């Protein structure tokens, strides 16, 4: 490889876009050529300068609302949830009937191998992902911003009818950053918010119908990972764009008794 060729490939080399064989050839040339080595260093300086996240622009607060306003209106429940109150309305009656029928159908399946649980799980997982996405966008991630579990836990008192377990896992790389009220599947739930590097994890908690402890069940959709488990009379739903492994590690911490 000569210098001209090296110059052509050096950016792809830095960006790990070359196949292994080509990368080795560039590497060998760089080892022997001080001039190209200097070019490599200058490229690295530029790349490092551009890595600074402050160079990107903050999204203006009003933009989310503007986008919502240009999209054709379909979802009434988005506004209802963001408003923070579940409004009982006329269409809830047929919905309730439909839900009853669905439950009855589901129960019929349940006896034949647990399909009910999985389809209910999928629907809830979608709901959980939607809530997660909205929490990141609607500037409504936190009602109580605090890294102190002893501040977050009492905040829920009187706002919901149960007291969710709140723990910080900062030492293990999952920092508690606060909590908020949210709505999943038409009910008020506690949402705890954790940070994993630059990623946000929402942990939704509400009282479970059974007191048994279950193994985590996982769902993946649209780049989000969701884990669901039961423990000590609560249902837990964790959702994030962190890797499935990271989310599993997080669930594992939560499942350990304090």
């Amino acid at each position, binding site marked *: 490889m000569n*210098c*001209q060729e090296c*110059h*052509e490939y*050096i*950016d*792809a080399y830095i*960006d790990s*876009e070359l196949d292994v064989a080509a990368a080795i050839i560039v590497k060998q040339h760089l080892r022997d050529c001080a*001039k190209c080595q*200097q*070019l490599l*260093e*200058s*490229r690295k*300086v*530029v*790349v490092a*300068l*551009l*890595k*600074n996240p*402050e*160079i*990107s*622009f903050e*999204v*203006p607060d*009003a*933009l*989310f609302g*503007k*986008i919502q306003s*240009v*999209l*054709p209106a*379909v*979802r009434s429940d*988005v506004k209802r949830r963001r408003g923070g109150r579940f409004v009982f309305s006329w269409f809830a009656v047929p919905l309730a009937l439909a839900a009853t029928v669905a439950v009855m159908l589901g129960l019929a399946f349940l006896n034949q191998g647990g399909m009910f649980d999985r389809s209910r799980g999928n629907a809830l997982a*979608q709901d959980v*992902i*939607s809530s997660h*996405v909205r929490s*990141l*966008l609607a500037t409504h991630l936190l009602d109580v911003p605090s890294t102190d579990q002893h501040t977050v836990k009492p905040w829920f008192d009187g706002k919901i009818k149960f007291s969710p377990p709140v723990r910080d896992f900062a030492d293990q790389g999952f920092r508690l950053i606060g909590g908020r009220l949210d709505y999943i599947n038409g009910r008020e739930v506690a949402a705890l918010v954790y940070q994993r590097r630059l990623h946000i994890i929402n942990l939704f908690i509400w009282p479970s119908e059974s007191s048994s402890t279950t193994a985590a069940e996982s769902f993946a*959709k*649209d780049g989000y990972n969701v884990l669901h488990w039961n423990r000590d009379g609560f249902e837990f739903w964790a959702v994030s*764009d962190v890797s499935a492994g990271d989310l599993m590690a997080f669930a594992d911490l939560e499942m350990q008794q304090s």
Partner: protein
Amino acid sequence: MNDEQTRTRFETLLLPLMSDAYNLARWLMKNQEDAEDMVQESYLRAFRFFGSFHEGTNCRAWFLRVVRNTCYTALGSRDVKDKEVPLDSEADEIEDSAPLPPVSFAKKATVEAVREAIAALPVDFREVVVLRELQGLSYKEISDVSGVPLGTVMSRLARARHQLYLILSDRKQREEL
């Protein structure tokens, strides 16, 4: 899929891309107001064409392409000159511009300087820099977004980085940084 499911799916897939979309538009248009208009227009267009988006396609690249094309359409009607890369700059051999003096920059002081340097690039170069350096797209994804071959992505990125280095080291030498 009914309307509500489509809308839910659209929101789940595309709303998390708002920051990427805004930043691409912000850098291409060079001002906040136009960028916001472009992002709104892009979401509307994406919603209309959501039917043509197939399961398994790279959603981010697909949407950024919509944003990119929306911006270029607007730029085209506003200022055709700006988006043209001067011929001599495409033909410019990288080797001729070497050697490059080693320079170190203080990270904190340079955010504005780096922004200005990016803004000074021709739009085609600015686009690859933003997609690669600020948004971390692969060459293949950049090729999909901008509709140019992989080789062109690579050479534009090389020239863009080279120009950025020259602009920034020049300012450094004039003791501005």
